[in-house]
């Protein structure tokens, strides 16, 4: 990596003075306090990671350093200082020299963070105009230099391009370049790697690491503890507006003192063998998601530590209930046989389920191909892809975005007609087949998707959705189906109090549970899961994964599990298939593919994922 010229103007009169010092930071929106007194301290060349789940107040805390907490925000602090400047004492003019010049912010989501109408060069140029005295040609030269420094190839061509013409990784790099142009001594990066594929993520982290090594102070905001491994010197874990644990990265990541941190760490599926539940420990209070009504409002009521007893089951949101159910079953393994949710005890990892030995596959896709577009603009989405699915087992399908894995899922679901190839369901023709022939067997294949909300008719309530599913579309009246609806909600760990709500009034995790409940109501043999957890927070993801695993055991489902996340796929799958550019590059038993990859692309994927930890 190219060294950064003059990064980190010497801001520090004393070598000991921190770049950033925050004490007792409080932020309120109206009457709701979202940040309740946090402390932060960053020295030059230090990287502090602020980690927490969505709604914990980490992003707004980071933005308040620049006076950008939002128009309705009230910010108070005992100390809020950047080097020797008191931020709270600054007026708009002073803040503007601080922003970009001394503190740079890399906002979330590079796609939205760059103006789609303006070439990236303009954004860099503006920062240079605002914070340097360079002339036009010098600025242009500097912009090219910066683009080169952040690792964008052919800067001369790229400088004129708009964000829409760049890939996700290049966009993120361009955004970073526009922030570095002001040569800030302190850099705040808000979820810089979140939406990126593994290999791109690694490049961005290396870039940030080299900046830190050059003396820039770095505040890294992330929801993923694993993502900050290897770059953060200090980790602060945030929950419900407070920092609940802080320490050197190695200590916090390896020997967390707090239960909440342990759960955050445990929630990561990385390295957890197939069949072992992720969240074995009982949930502490702090992790409980408040019952969500439409919009999550951060509440301060639940800030009490994990000592309070679990609240009444009727008011507990679903995400917690299941965890309790699982733990209680686990403690009482003797009764597991009769329990609908009985998972195998964690001490004895599951033997391969009996179903997998069944010789005949439940579903077999042979050489499926699909090309989109017309006349000279044809994009092959899937090329000769073959898959085999057995009852009681999970086939994981890995691929980066755009690799064609979702199209393959839609072909298997009979939502698209393939150009070539066939799918057989239980030995009978499934694709291609007339829809009328497929319809009587449709109930055998169910599906859940990345965005469950879009799959619910907004006019229907939870119980209407389930009544419709149980009655196979005959009725929306919950009246005759109370029992079935209650069982459905129970099976996915949703409290029955949600029955009258609309899907928009549920949290993300609850919505995905509801979509699982609906899928199971049709009593399927196969469940196609297309990125079912990628929109969820890590702990919520963990609970949904645990639920899917438990349900699979109970019902002997065959799962086709599609994800871009290697750790997730490795944790849930018996066999995996790796997809790239519409082709299945490699497939086989999970441990074989991951342990001894036969394909070059698989090896590269694994290397990228392994590298950042």
């Amino acid at each position: 990596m190219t060294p950064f010229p003059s990064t980190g103007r010497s801001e520090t009169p004393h070598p000991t003075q921190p770049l950033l010092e925050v004490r007792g930071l409080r932020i309120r929106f109206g009457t709701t306090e979202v940040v309740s007194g946090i402390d932060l301290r960053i020295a030059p060349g230090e990287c502090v990671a602020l980690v927490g789940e969505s709604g914990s107040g980490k992003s707004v805390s980071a933005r308040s350093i620049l006076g950008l907490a939002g128009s309705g925000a009230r910010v108070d602090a005992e100390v809020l200082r950047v080097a020797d400047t008191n931020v709270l004492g600054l007026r708009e003019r002073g803040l503007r020299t601080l922003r970009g010049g001394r503190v740079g912010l890399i906002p979330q989501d590079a796609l939205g963070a760059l103006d789609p109408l303006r070439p990236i060069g303009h954004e860099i140029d503006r920062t240079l105009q605002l914070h340097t005295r360079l002339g036009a040609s010098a600025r242009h030269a500097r912009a090219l230099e910066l683009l080169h420094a952040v690792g964008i190839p052919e800067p001369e061509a790229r400088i004129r391009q708009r964000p829409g013409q760049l890939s996700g990784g290049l966009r993120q790099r361009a955004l970073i370049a526009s922030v570095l142009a002001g040569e800030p001594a302190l850099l705040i990066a808000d979820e810089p790697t979140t939406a990126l594929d593994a290999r791109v993520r690694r490049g961005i982290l290396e870039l940030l690491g080299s900046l830190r090594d050059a003396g820039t102070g770095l505040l890294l905001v992330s929801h993923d503890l694993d993502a900050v491994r290897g770059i953060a010197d200090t980790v602060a874990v945030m929950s419900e507006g407070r920092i609940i644990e802080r320490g050197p990265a190695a200590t916090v990541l390896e020997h967390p003192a707090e239960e909440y941190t342990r759960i955050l760490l445990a929630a990561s599926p990385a390295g957890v063998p197939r069949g072992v539940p992720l969240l074995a420990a009982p949930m502490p209070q702090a992790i409980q998601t408040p019952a969500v009504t439409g919009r999550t409002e951060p509440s301060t009521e639940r800030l009490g530590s994990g000592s309070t007893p679990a609240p009444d089951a009727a008011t507990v949101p679903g995400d917690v209930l299941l965890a309790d159910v699982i733990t209680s079953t686990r403690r009482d393994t003797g009764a597991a046989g009769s329990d609908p949710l009985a998972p195998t005890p964690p001490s004895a990892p599951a033997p391969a389920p009996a179903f997998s030995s069944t010789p005949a596959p439940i579903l077999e896709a042979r050489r499926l191909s699909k090309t989109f577009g017309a006349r000279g603009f044809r994009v092959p989405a899937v090329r000769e892809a073959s898959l085999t699915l057995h009852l009681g087992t999970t086939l994981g399908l890995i691929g980066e975005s755009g690799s064609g894995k979702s199209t393959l899922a839609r072909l298997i679901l009979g939502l698209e007609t393939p150009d070539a190839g066939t799918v057989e369901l239980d030995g009978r023709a499934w694709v291609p087949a007339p829809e009328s022939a497929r319809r009587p067997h449709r109930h055998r294949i169910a599906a859940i998707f990345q965005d469950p909300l879009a799959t619910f008719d907004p006019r229907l309530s939870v119980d209407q959705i389930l009544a419709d599913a149980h009655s196979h579309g005959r009725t929306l009246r919950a009246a005759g189906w109370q029992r079935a609806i209650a069982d459905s909600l129970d099976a996915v760990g949703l409290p029955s109090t949600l029955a009258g709500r609309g899907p928009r009034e549920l949290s993300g995790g609850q919505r995905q549970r509801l979509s699982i409940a609906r899928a199971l109501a049709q009593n399927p043999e196969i469940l196609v899961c297309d990125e079912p957890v990628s929109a969820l927070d890590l702990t919520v993801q963990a609970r949904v994964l645990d639920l899917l695993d438990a349900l699979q055991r109970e019902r002997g489902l065959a799962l086709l599990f599609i994800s871009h996340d290697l750790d997730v796929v490795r944790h849930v799958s018996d066999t995996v298939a790796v997809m790239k550019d519409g082709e299945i590059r490699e497939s086989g038993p999970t441990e074989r593919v991951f342990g001894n990859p036969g394909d070059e692309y698989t090896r590269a994927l694994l290397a990228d994922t392994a590298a950042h930890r």
Partner: protein
Amino acid sequence: MSENTRQERPGSEPTSPSTPPHAQHARASQPVPPRTASPWGSHTPHRFTLRARDIPRLIAALILLLLVIAAIFPALFAPGDPLAIDPAAGFQPPGGAHPFGTDGSGRDLYTRVIHGAGPSLLIGLGATALGIGLATILGLLAGLGPRWLDFGTSRLIEVLLAFPGLVLALLVMVISGPGALGATVAVGLATAPGYARIIRGRVREIAGSGYVEAARVQGRGRVHILTRHIFPGTARSLASLATLGLGQAIVWVCALSFLGLGVAPPAAEWGALLNEGRQFIATFWWLTFFPGLFIVLTAVSATVLGRGLARTDRSAS
């Protein structure tokens, strides 16, 4: 100005039939507060909490309600005869026995305006019903039919939209002839293409939605998807469209009457009253002011209420 642009735009939410294509902003990305009330199939317990933003809608509904009562029982508000002449009391300014003044023959303007509510609303309703009815047929054909039918219908809508609204209505009037019926038909036909475009967009939006796809995965048939998802979803949009359109239709029909092509004087219809008063704008202002005020009141109320409905519809989808 080609078909591509029209289809690319997220113009599928009902705002107003007269609203231009681009005006229909996709505001779905906004966070949605929990629903407190929805006109159809409300599953949230109805909570009667009155918020400040609901007050205009409430007032609008009240005004429309009063107008409807006046239309059905005009004698409740104005017991006199709208056609009774009193030549001695011609062109009386507002005040005293004649709150809105009198016309040249001494007819009480207040009585005439109240009695005009009936014909005015009826013609407006008729035109809206015709417009929405035609548009629903076109919109469903285009939205649900095979590709060639969608192509044909969409092009027809596009061609009709090339005529400015009132100009199209005038073109129809030359064929249908002047009079109340002619004006109703003209306004109905002239507003239909705008509605049809919105309905087609809505139908296609639902037909391509994740929940219709989910229904297909569940093995639901065409009829089920139509009756459970597409028709109810479209019906909600129709309700707000019709309310918004009512105001528009009344204004247009009155414009035609005002131009001397719709309802002819001495009928008490508001547009006809305006036409009567037209030549006296400079001398006897009340003759145009009060009937016009009632038209504006109706149109504004219908718009406020229609937008309210559109908003609940949007936040639900």
